[in-house]
């Protein structure tokens, strides 16, 4: 494992999450080691997105704790959020009034000031090189998602949190997504994603969420 660039693992103990003031998840436990992927499954409203947002630090925890570990050393949550987390939500994080290229260059400076990857290579990779100077608002839903995927590549970060990343992607796009995820795992990266039936990663662990708590 010493050759892998990422060595951060993720542990969740007895996590309780709320959405809009309602307690929707309780007692969630899991561990994700470097190189592992966890697929969260569950019906609509089961709390998959809420759990993911809690992991990103966007929502307050009702109970339990989230640990990011390097070996057995606990890492600072704020440090992790600032440098080691990618969150790819339904909203993509794409600014529609900026062009494709402007989105990418601003991410590059904000997320990875010392990065060396070329925007044009990234656009090639996700198949958007012909759209570089288009306003992001003109992209289709799948193209916006592809643009959002470049964010994962611009800044090398250990932990990827993805909310139904395969949505809106065509089969070629899904293959690309799988390839990116597998490359990330081979480097010791951690992936937590939500998905409905139909998308999964090879030998990923699964966790079924159910609305056990409604109080």
């Amino acid at each position, binding site marked *: 494992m010493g050759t892998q660039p990422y060595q951060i693992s993720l542990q969740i103990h007895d996590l309780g999450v709320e959405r809009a003031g309602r307690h929707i998840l309780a007692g969630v436990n899991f561990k994700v080691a470097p190189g592992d992927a966890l697929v969260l499954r569950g019906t609509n409203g089961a709390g998959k997105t809420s759990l993911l947002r809690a992991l*990103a630090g*966007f929502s307050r925890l009702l109970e339990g704790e989230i640990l990011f570990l390097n070996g057995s050393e606990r890492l600072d949550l704020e440090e992790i959020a600032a440098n080691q987390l990618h969150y790819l939500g339904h909203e993509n*994080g794409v600014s529609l009034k900026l062009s494709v290229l402007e989105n990418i260059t601003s991410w590059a400076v904000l997320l990875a000031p010392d990065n060396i990857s070329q925007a044009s290579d990234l656009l090639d990779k996700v198949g958007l090189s012909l759209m570089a100077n288009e306003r992001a608002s003109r992209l289709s839903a799948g193209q916006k998602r592809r643009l959002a995927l470049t*964010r994962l590549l611009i800044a090398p970060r250990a932990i990827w949190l993805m909310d139904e990343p395969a949505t809106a992607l065509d089969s070629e796009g899904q293959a690309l997504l799988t390839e990116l995820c597998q490359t990330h795992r081979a480097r010791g990266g951690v992936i937590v994603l939500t998905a409905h039936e139909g998308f999964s990663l090879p030998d990923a662990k699964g966790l079924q969420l159910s609305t056990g708590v409604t109080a």
Partner: protein
Amino acid sequence: MNAGFTLLRQEIRLRLRGSAGPAALGLFILAGALAPLSLGTNDDLLIAIAPGLLWIFACLAALLGLEGLFQDDLSEGRFAVLRLTTLPLWLVMLLMMLAYWIVVCAPVLIAAIPIGFLLGADPATTLRLSLSLGVGTPALAFIGACLAAICAGLPRGTGLVIFLALPFFAPALIFGARAASGGDDMVAAFMFLSAFSLIALATCPFIAAAAIRQNME
């Protein structure tokens, strides 16, 4: 440092592509140019009320510019990206508010010069007016943006922002018009305006950051 500068530039570009900046400036110029038509051609009256009138127009312009501020950023997930950077959220909000002032308020204080002349004010009054707007509008921008952040999660929250802003804008309006009119209490009025802007600058980014956190939960 570099990241902060990039964010400011990106933010100014985004605001310039929105409708808020041109709408605010358009309102200010149009209202200023139309005022003599409705108020009559009594020069003394126009000269006497010009500072107060233009301060009201500036407040309205600043409010108009708040339309939709931060709403797209929330719904497009931009804040989710910005929260996962090394920039603290209060600094992000400070830079966004600064960009808002540059795009919406700065053009107004430049436009105040020709509009002041149009209303017949003498050069000294016009200069004082522009200067008082320069000192006072940061307070309007920061407080307005702060309220916009609080209401960003509400559909059609701008109406609420306008009502909430009224009491906060009143001090700037009172002392801004005083400072622009000149007279004995001009220096005191300028000092009050500066203090008001500085307090807004020191507190609003933190309040807005807390509001955005709350809106994202």
